[in-house]
């Protein structure tokens, strides 16, 4: 009990004193997850629009597959990306393995299904007459889709935040692809894992508190945005 209490006190001290190790890991985590979220958004919003507004064979099936991929195991994504970027893999020449770039790609792949699925539901929830309204007011097809995306903006931002939350809190892919290299690819989750196995509970707890804090802020923001509607 005493050891746990000491660890908590030390963890808080690490946070309050802005310990360079803690700051470094947190900052890297945020950067990688924000990058992967933004890249995923660049893919998901237009693609979500396309899937929502075009009718094609197998649309329902595609949406079902996307939804199934919500629970894609992070370690599997890690494995897949690892195979591709490892020196023997098809993208081996890019020398991406154990780099932050590879981690961004991995996280992006991981969160794309959930972000895409939620974007599709967000766009689908917009009043169908909005499209007719915009068209009858002289909008082109593209302008009409943009107007619908704007109508769904709160739900789409919530989808982005959810994606970010999944990206920053996953450990499997980050560990496999990033390799948990000190001051290079070590992020909150991989650092917590390592610190725990090494018995450095103070550091593990400090990073854990920060991770929970970030997750809570993100989910709070998502809720607030949803309620603004």
């Amino acid at each position, binding site marked *: 009990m005493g050891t746990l209490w000491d660890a908590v006190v030390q963890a808080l001290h690490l946070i309050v004193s802005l310990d360079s190790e803690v700051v470094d890991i947190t900052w890297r985590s945020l950067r990688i997850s924000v990058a992967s979220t933004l890249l995923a958004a660049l893919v998901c919003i237009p693609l979500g629009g396309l899937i929502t507004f075009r009718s094609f064979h197998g649309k329902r099936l595609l949406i079902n597959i996307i939804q199934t991929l919500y629970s894609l195991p992070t370690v599997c994504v890690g494995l897949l990306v690892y195979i591709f970027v490892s020196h023997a893999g098809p993208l081996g020449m890019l020398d991406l393995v154990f780099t932050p770039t590879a981690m961004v790609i991995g996280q992006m792949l991981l969160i794309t299904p959930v972000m895409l699925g939620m974007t599709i539901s967000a766009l689908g929830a917009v*009043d169908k*007459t*909005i499209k*007719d*309204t*915009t*068209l*009858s*007011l*002289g*909008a*082109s*097809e593209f*302008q009409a889709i943009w*107007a619908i995306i*704007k*109508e769904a903006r709160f739900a789409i931002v919530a989808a982005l935040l959810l994606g970010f939350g999944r990206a920053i809190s996953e450990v499997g892919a980050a560990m496999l692809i990033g390799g948990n290299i000190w001051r290079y690819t070590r992020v909150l989750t991989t650092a917590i894992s390592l610190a725990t196995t090494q018995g450095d509970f103070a550091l593990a707890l400090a990073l854990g508190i920060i991770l929970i804090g970030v997750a809570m802020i993100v989910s709070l923001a998502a809720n607030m945005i949803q309620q603004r*509607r």
Partner: protein
Amino acid sequence: MPLIELLDLNQRHGPRTTLKGISLSIEKGEILAVIGPTGSGKTTLLRLIDQLDTPASGKVLFDGRDVTPRLRTKVRRQISMVLQKPVVFDASVYDNVAYPLRVRRGDRKAIPEKVNTMLKTVGLDGYQKRKARTLSGGETQKVALARAIITDPQVLLLDEPTANLDPVSLNSIEELILRFNRDNGMAFVLATHEMAQGQRLAHRIGVMMDGELIQVGKPADIFYAPNDVRVARFVGVENILKGRITANEGGLARVETNGQSLEVVTDHRFGEEVHVFIRPEEITISLQAASSSARNAFSGQVSLVALSGPYARAEIDCGFTLVALITRRSAEELGLKVGQQVNASFKATAIHVISLG
């Protein structure tokens, strides 16, 4: 050349045929009301005119040109439509009304003045910053109308523009329609299930039933000379009798119906089977024998009196049932009640006759 020409339009929704062979012209600067019961195809028709849907067959010509998919946006920019349940964007009133100007990528600097002037016109000055979604039904309708009118389209399509509005909002919307028609020469096509609105606003009325355009004509023709029993019923002709012309001398004819004889002004010939239409407000009820100018007078017993606002509807059994619509005040003065013996009379010119079949 008509502004819009519809050539033999047919539309299907799944297995259901929703429009059957509609051919119609809309002239520049005219107000055309399309009336008909719910589900008769009015909205389907407007959506085809506005290029929101593609017809199963038939053509829509705009300014004499066939509207190909490539021309759609261009044509839509000269037409505006206010949908039956207008939706406003989740944005300010200002942004809503500015939207059509922005998508046209015209002179951006001119937008604020245009929007403010338009909001003043529709009586929403000072609403610029209000969230459009927080407005009342009447205000939303006005925003939708302002948004549709601001580009000064050649024709504005209005789908049930005043359904569910209070009388004050209804009046102001109708005034706006008349004003834009008069001042800007804007053509209007308005779909309404309210025949009185068609009568108040329209230069011409088209009556739709079950996806077909049954009759198109001036309001007076539609109301006093319907060419079909369904149209007659819809426009409030409550007395529809079957009969046969038994004599016609110089246009003054006799029609035998239900064992009674009516005097009618008509060109229909001797021996023709006909439908006789008498509007309920054409029937006069009196306690004594009928006035001399009315050719047709029947005595009968009141079988029903129903009050409706300032009017009273009475059913009189004269061997056949006649429905009369009189003012509530007259009903009170006559002391009209069920079982009472009265005289019902109407002029020979108040009857419209069509061939049966």
